[in-house]
């Protein structure tokens, strides 16, 4: 008998290890032969730990399972039980998705190359090995894939720049510094299907002529880092990495590096400085990292999801991927639904879903049962959306038009107890804490921003235009998006929730 209990850190955070211990103890007590597979997460975090068993009708799910449920599940023969959910694939959350990047996540044993290949793994790379580098890059360009790390730059065009550069060494750097609040897609794929990321990096190496890759992950992700380290070791032993990719291609190897708790190191040039062993200070562009990146050499810097989506594009073809989506946002996006929600987790779907459908239908409203007040999309530099903007379809341009950004597709829901002045203050405080210090509007502006919000909180309404001016200065005068985009959460809070700013003025006056 096979029992699946995720090793994903959200499942662990909700007690998966205790469930596994209970399963093993119960199997031993009953003298049953049980194999426990530690899969990734299916992304239904509200049902974690989600336990699955194999059956003739496919995998059957139970959740959320606590250690106390385990004996009862054995008694019921993993049939009828209060925690029974039916076949996993038939659950509405699963059925409504288009899982391309996350097709294997939660399904396979993340550290089994056999499982990986049995579910389509390496098909994209095998096809790429028969193509010219130009054709690989063209395939990625034609797919319409844009960077999933936030800026949305076309991945194929970036690759083309690196491919066209002449140098003795080129690098592929995977940006796994996923620092945005509300995001966990990178973590989930690294824990649930790390070979997909490795495969994507190898294909990138073939496309641009690089033989060395780095994954820059974060110290806040100890579980993901352990899975990645083991996956790289297994990939080397298998010959996927090493002197000749699968014995058919050129050399490619990957080194895992761990950051040290600086949000700004997610910015690509700060990341490169950090990789080189320096302070994570942002570099001025130009030069583009594509031409002068790691150690001054041409470097592809791509987000985890951008790279992990490359295999399916190579496997199924550019037009298959491009046919999903809306406007200039092609393909699928793993929405990460978080914060105060009834159903939180990862939902991969074609671009275009409205924010209202995401928050009201998918997430089912708030966990507290109170009305939704605001939704922050795109991490700490993303705007707060009020219900009035819930018709916004999910896409890069569509969000920009509404004064926001999709960023890494994190969606954080707040109920009506949220104080938007406090959220604006936090945005400034975060910028002040994480500023790399290179430019004054960010380094000093964010500190002034906190002080200005505090003045507003004390009832000084005259400080409101000062806050607006300060945001303009930060927007215009910052070198990177930390200082440049902190005005998004601040100004959206002020614009869409003015009562929270004036109310404090009134309250203080009374």
């Amino acid at each position, binding site marked *: 008998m096979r029992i699946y209990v995720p090793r994903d850190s959200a499942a662990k955070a*909700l007690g998966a290890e205790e469930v596994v211990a209970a399963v093993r103890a119960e199997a031993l007590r009953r003298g049953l032969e049980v194999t426990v597979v530690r899969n990734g997460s299916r992304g239904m975090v509200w049902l*974690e730990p989600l336990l699955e068993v194999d059956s003739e009708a496919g995998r059957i799910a139970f959740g959320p399972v606590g250690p106390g449920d385990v004996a009862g599940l054995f008694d019921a023969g993993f049939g009828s039980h209060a925690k029974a959910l039916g076949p996993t694939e038939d659950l509405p959350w699963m059925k409504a998705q288009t899982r391309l990047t996350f097709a294997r996540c939660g399904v396979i044993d993340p550290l089994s190359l056999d499982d990986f290949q049995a579910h389509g793994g390496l098909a994209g790379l095998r096809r790429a090995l028969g193509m010219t580098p130009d054709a690989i890059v063209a395939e990625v360009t034609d797919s319409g894939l844009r960077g999933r790390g936030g800026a949305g730059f076309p991945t194929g065009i970036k690759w083309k720049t690196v491919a066209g550069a002449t140098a003795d060494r080129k690098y592929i750097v995977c940006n796994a510094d996923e620092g945005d609040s509300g*995001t966990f897609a990178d973590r989930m794929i690294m824990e649930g299907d790390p070979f997909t990321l490795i495969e994507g990096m190898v294909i990138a190496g073939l496309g641009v002529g690089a033989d060395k890759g780095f994954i820059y992950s974060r110290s*806040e*992700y100890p579980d993901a880092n352990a899975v990645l380290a083991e996956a790289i070791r297994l990939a080397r032993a298998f010959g996927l990495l090493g002197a000749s990719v699968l014995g058919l291609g050129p050399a490619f190897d990957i080194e895992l590096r761990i950051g*040290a708790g600086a949000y700004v190191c997610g910015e690509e040039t700060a990341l490169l400085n950090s990789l080189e062993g320096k*302070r994570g200070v942002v570099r001025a562009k130009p030069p583009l990292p594509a031409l002068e990146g790691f150690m001054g050499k041409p470097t592809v810097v791509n987000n985890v999801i951008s790279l992990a989506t490359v295999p399916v594009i190579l496997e199924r073809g550019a037009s298959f991927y491009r046919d999903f989506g809306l406007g200039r946002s092609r393909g699928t996006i793993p929405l990460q639904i978080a914060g*105060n929600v009834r159903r939180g*987790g990862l939902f991969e779907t074609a671009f275009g879903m409205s924010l209202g459908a995401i928050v009201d239908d998918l997430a089912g409203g708030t966990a507290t049962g109170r009305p939704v007040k605001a939704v922050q999309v795109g991490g700490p530099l993303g705007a707060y959306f009020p219900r009035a903007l819930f018709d916004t379809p999910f896409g890069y341009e569509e969000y920009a038009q509404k004064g926001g950004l999709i960023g890494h597709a*994190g969606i954080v829901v707040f109920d009506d107890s949220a104080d938007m002045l406090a959220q604006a203050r936090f945005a400034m405080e975060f910028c002040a804490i994480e500023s790399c210090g290179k430019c004054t509007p960010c380094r000093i502006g964010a500190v002034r921003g906190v002080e200005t919000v505090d003045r507003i909180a004390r009832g000084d309404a005259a400080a409101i235009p000062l806050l607006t001016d300060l945001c303009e200065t930060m927007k215009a005068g910052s070198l990177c998006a930390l200082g440049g985009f902190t005005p998004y959460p601040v100004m959206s809070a002020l614009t869409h929730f003015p009562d929270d700013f004036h109310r404090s003025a009134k309250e203080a006056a009374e």
Partner: protein
Amino acid sequence: MMPGIADSAEQIGEILRAHDGLEGPLIPVLHAVQAAFGYIPGDALPLIAQHLNVSRAEVHGVISFYHDFREEPAGRHILKLCRAEACQAMGADRVAAHARDALGIGWHQTTPDGSVTLEPVFCLGLCACAPAALVDGRVLGRVDEARLDALIAEVRP
């Protein structure tokens, strides 16, 4: 020289040699030193600087830039509480205030008995089961006051 210092110099030398050949080895070296000692001892700076052929000021600049690196020992347990938005939406501020009260310390401080150091963290990728915490590298979700009290009792017998 005290015997302890000679021992640690030996250990730091081993760490440095183990990282020879890496491109840009400083961050991995600092992580390894901190993993071995619990912090970056001041004595380590000249050794690292000399081995990597950079100035001491440069090494110090790097150590002070990154939130993870500490120049003083931490408590026996490190409790990291997420302070970021998704956790805020689920009451992280309240839980953090409770932690500071229960431990009688502020952020970045260690309890007088040396048992717990309290650190803020900005997102653990557990935003769909917020508020989140990391205790000595172990992840915890949906952390409320009761769960926190149980945890503190566990690490502070």
